[in-house]
């Protein structure tokens, strides 16, 4: 893989990159990684709670991408499609792993400590403290943007259960962040 291909590929649209991946271009996979890798890693991390596991999830997504794009039809959002796959892969891993990892806060990007940042760190910590059943729904709804119907299907629960878990998650966050009961 050469770096010289990347600048040219940065201007390509998602659909153009998909076509290049279908034709076996490793540079196109790099370009997609540059464009969405961090976003997918963070999404997986929110769901799964472990940096190592989240990196494994992202690895699997990109290793499986050349074959999976055969089933992608260019009439939707490629980003949403990638995120959906990442969610499923992460959920599969969570179902397999009974072990719970502590969030590895040392991996977080360091930032100047402002009140805002302190609040965000608190929010991140609060999300990490949610029970996994509530956290999954919260992350899928508030970060992934999935509907309750879709979340229910992903997690094998009823739609009503998904709605209940979401408001319980938010209520818990509200309590933990001191914003009220």
């Amino acid at each position, binding site marked *: 893989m050469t770096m010289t291909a990347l600048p040219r590929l940065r201007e390509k649209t998602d659909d153009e990159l998909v076509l290049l991946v279908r034709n076996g271009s490793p540079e196109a996979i790099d370009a997609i990684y540059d464009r969405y890798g961090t976003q997918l*890693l963070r999404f997986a991390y929110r769901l799964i709670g472990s940096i190592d596991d989240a990196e494994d999830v992202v690895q699997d997504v990109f*290793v499986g991408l050349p074959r999976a794009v055969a089933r992608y039809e260019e*009439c939707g959002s490629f980003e949403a499609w990638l995120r959906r796959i990442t969610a499923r892969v992460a959920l599969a891993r969570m*179902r397999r792993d009974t072990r719970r990892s502590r969030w590895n806060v040392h991996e977080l*990007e360091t930032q100047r400590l402002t009140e805002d940042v302190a609040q965000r760190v608190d*929010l991140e910590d609060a999300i990490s403290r949610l029970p996994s059943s509530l956290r999954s729904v919260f992350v899928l709804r508030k970060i992934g943007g999935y509907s309750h119907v879709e979340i229910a299907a992903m997690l094998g629960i009823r*739609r009503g259960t998904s709605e209940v878990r979401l408001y319980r998650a938010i209520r818990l*966050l*509200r309590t933990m962040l001191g914003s*009220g009961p």
Partner: protein
Amino acid sequence: MIRYLHPTERALQHIADRDVVPGRITRAHLARCQRCRNVIAFSRSLEDDVAHIRGPIAGEELRQAIHARLSANDHVLLPTEIARGPSSSFGRRAAVAATLVAAMGLWLLSTRGAVASASSGELRFHPGRLSAGSIVSVEYRDAGQFADETVLVLRGRLRIPTNQSYNSALTQARLTSLARTSRGVFRGSFRVPDSVVYGAFAVENEAGDRVDSRNRELWELYATDSRGRPTFEALSQAFNDLLDVNPERALQVVRDRARLYPDDPSAWGDLVGWEGIMMGDDYADSVRPLYRPTASRLHELYSARDEVSIEVAYGMASLARAISDSAHPEFREISSYWRDRLYADTAKRSVTAAEVRLFAAQDSARKYPARTLARYEQLWRRGDSIVFFAANNGFNFARMANDSAAVVRWADRSALRNPRLLGPSVYGRLVEDSTYREVALDRLRALLRWFAQRHDAWRPLHASRVEHARDDSAIVASVFTSIGKALLASGRTAAALDTLDRATHGTWDAIVFRQVADLRLSAGDSAGAVRAYASVAADPATSRETSDSLWRRLNVSADRWRELIQEAHAEMRRRVLVGVITRPMSGAPRLATRNGAPATLDQLRGGRVTVVTFWSRYCAPSRVQFAALPTLARHLNRFGIQLVAVTGETPSRSLDEFIRSANVDFPVYYDRWKEAARMFETMRTPDYFVLDGSGLLRFANTSLEKVLTQAVALTPHMTAAAPASVGR
């Protein structure tokens, strides 16, 4: 006065998510209630705050890890679906059931499979769907293999809703010519015949000696509804077609069908069944609970109706049975309920219900074969949708009932379904019985005339004419063998000898060589007998002792005998390797030993020629052949060839006992994650494959009878040992 309470938290969440617009009273309450407004504001602010949370960054180390796995041809099967955006014409109807299928997540797999060649062209259809009577325009862009052609041919296999599973009874047709245009692409068109809902396609040159079958995956078209969604019948026929062409793609199709038609029980029944076969027991056990809400919902929906179709009743019975277990016996009751409805008065008129009843009553039917045969006759006369096993069952019951006219009649019906594959099999069985020998001989001779006419319609889409002719010649050889043995059994020795010679021309069959040798010796043709005996001695299954005893019958020196055997070895290798393929099988599927320790196929191969066999104790032919595996293993070991026996079952004490009873003294491996079955693209048992020393697949889907010679032919040395007895 009615006091207005706060809206529930759930309701407030809906308002925060903008899923609902608050009514007049709620708006008035929110205007007064700071607490409820805070709840809504907090929830909405979370979206912004969460978006600003930083987190880990996907860096170079992760990128390098990805590329290392891609370079190692690591394959991951991702849980995709027919991906459509929000404006998808596929819609999001019943998305709970829909994404339940694809969102199992548990079917994330890591497997190492064959790398597909990149030499396939591009085939496009317009419109991209099948509609009876319509014209479909075809455009093909060549990837280079047809550079010197001006005209190509589009061949297809077209299915209608009543076609059965698998492709053995279906023919292929030339649909249209594709002419090269000035821009280099090939164009043509064809009219869609009536009732066709699914088509599989390949492109070839006019001579049929070069084929683009998209690396055996073929191109497809579906009938669609007004929303552009593949119809249920189209997806069903796709599933039927893919079962023995591409089992993994069949899994994808059956998942899509359940997603798109979540109210159809047969969609779910087939999905549960095929997932169990493809993914293994562990997976099936883990996802069973996820299907229960669907089964309950469908039972509630359909049990309330006085009339349901046979397909619904059958689908419900199958689905409920598949997901029941000791912890959920209610589903066994549901299955019984639907089985009873299937056999109820209205269902008796249906051919399908009659078939199901007959099939379910197999065991008791054996006690009354004549009565059962009469029912099969009724069934055959009534319907054209009879399932594929009925012809074979009719044949078996006719034999049990000793009804000779019926035996021949059902043999003919079975052979008609596929003269190429079923004809030799059913008449080959019949010819062994002296009662039917003459009529079976007539039928076998008619089959030879049929083969001589080269019926191209039975050529699979992926096969060139040359490959098909080679396969045909192996089948023709088996027909000659059946005829020769029948002639021998009826005392027509000269004709038998001539026929058996023709049977072995170009093929390798040590049993027939032995018969030919004995016949020639007894007829005084020593020279002919010697060569035939040398072929027997050269066969890998022949022991040193047998070889010596054959030599002692003959008047040849030890050196000459050794020379003849070496020539026979070379001839064996030449004939056997005519059918060899070269398919890369890079990667290492995971297998498990009895105690759960992992092993990869590469580790087991150890750089040697390896025979991989898939077996199951639940398959009768597989059980019988399993007992022969210790002998096969001993023969293979003499040539340094490895045998890897794989079962899809999980280890259990009953399985241990079964293995012990077969005196198996080599390790058995467990394909718990179905990675090996997927890599070899087989869901059948028994099945045999031969890998050469470098890991290339050289023989696929072969048989117990052939696998020894095929594996030995790949070994670099096949030295003939000098006879133990020297001098006379």
